[in-house]
């Protein structure tokens, strides 16, 4: 079936079987491998993308259902090839990524959180990422990364404590 998506601001047309999930479509048809295929039944959050700006599990929606929707993947967050966005930088600096498998989902959740709540409390950050599993259990640094990114985005460009 023909499906028209707007992926990271660009109109993209794909031809997929109805049973192709959005995550498989993004990875296999559009070569966007920043979105990860984890549990494939909606538990882990590794496949999180933004659909019309809202975090959603790309394994729990078939690409045909997303026809006409705007999809945002982690690839859109870098300002230029080879560079990192503010949230991505913060994850590097605080060691918010270990194996990296959950990272793109975590970053997109943070990105969406900042849009509705630019200065979230620690509790709000924890609630926001509660649907995303880090199998390395590095939640402490992930929360720290999101706190750091929030401060930077608010214009308080502080360094990380040594």
């Amino acid at each position, binding site marked *: 079936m023909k499906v028209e998506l707007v992926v990271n601001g660009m109109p993209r047309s794909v031809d997929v079987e*109805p049973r192709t999930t959005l995550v*498989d479509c993004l990875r296999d048809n559009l070569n966007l491998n920043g979105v990860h295929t984890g549990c494939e039944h*909606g538990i882990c959050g590794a496949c999180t993308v933004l*659909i019309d700006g*809202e975090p959603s599990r790309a394994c*729990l929606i078939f690409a045909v259902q997303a026809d006409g929707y705007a999809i945002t993947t982690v690839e859109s967050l870098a300002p230029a090839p080879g560079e990192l966005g503010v949230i991505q930088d913060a994850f590097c600096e605080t060691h918010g990524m270990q194996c990296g498998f959950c990272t793109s989902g975590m970053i997109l959740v943070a990105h969406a959180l900042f849009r509705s709540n630019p200065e979230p409390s620690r509790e709000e950050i924890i609630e926001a990422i*509660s*649907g995303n599993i880090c199998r390395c259990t590095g939640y402490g640094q992930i929360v720290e990364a999101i706190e750091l990114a929030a401060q930077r985005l608010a214009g308080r460009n502080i360094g990380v404590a040594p």
Partner: protein
Amino acid sequence: MKAAPFEYVRPGSVDEVCVCLSADPDAAIIAGGQTLVPMMAMRLARPSRLIDITRIPELHGIRDDGAAIAIGAVTRQATAAHDDLIARKVSLLAAALPWVGHAATRNRGTVGGSVANADPAAEIPLVLVTLRGHVVLRDSAGPRTLASQDFFLGPMMTALTPGCCITEVRFPVWEHARIGVGFQEVSARQGDFALVSAAAQVALDQAGRCTACALGVGGATAVPQRLDAVSRVLTGSHLTDVEIGAAVRAATGSLEIMSSPHASDDYRRRAAATLGRRALAQARDAALASTGRHQ
């Protein structure tokens, strides 16, 4: 973990949905898909055809028809959770919605989908049963309204017959001036299915006496249970901790608890009693703190 092949259709009206459903007995309706898609990925469900109802305009929207807040079947849980009308008129639903899955699944999951799925641990069916709400259905014969207690028949079993589509879910509005609600849940991890949950709504008169009271428990039994005995005993009381404790203990003692490997019968019964008591106390305290009309 990939779904078996199926056909996909996106009808423009509920009438067309009914036609599609009656043409193919193995077809399934898909709305948010947050339960159906994983079932398909695990091949526990293999519909021949998916009928996507999410873009049908008549199934969207939240409206106040006086006696109830009517929520269109494909209204997303996240939309309902942020809706002002629901917050003011059926605040018990507003209190329960943050417990439904995670933010990412609430962004796609629908109110009608949760009701149709009839998971005994699901929060929206619990609120519907607690408030004695209604489910509006349509099939080729026309629309029908079922009381929630007649709709939920067992775990993942409802009175939906083949060819039926839920169009609306109706949550009754209490007209009392001083209303308070409470919602309590215990689960293995945040956002997981409830092992046990409890929903309570009470109304108080100006003297603090209870004029109406509803308590429901979810997760513990095959379908969400409204504990009518609690309402009978506590209406007219001042909802003291002692009165609440005795009424809830008596009512939960006779519940037919559903077994599962995750929590023993005994645990579920005790959790139902404890959470029921907490939910009622939370509702009472909220009602005492409110001064005027909730609207």
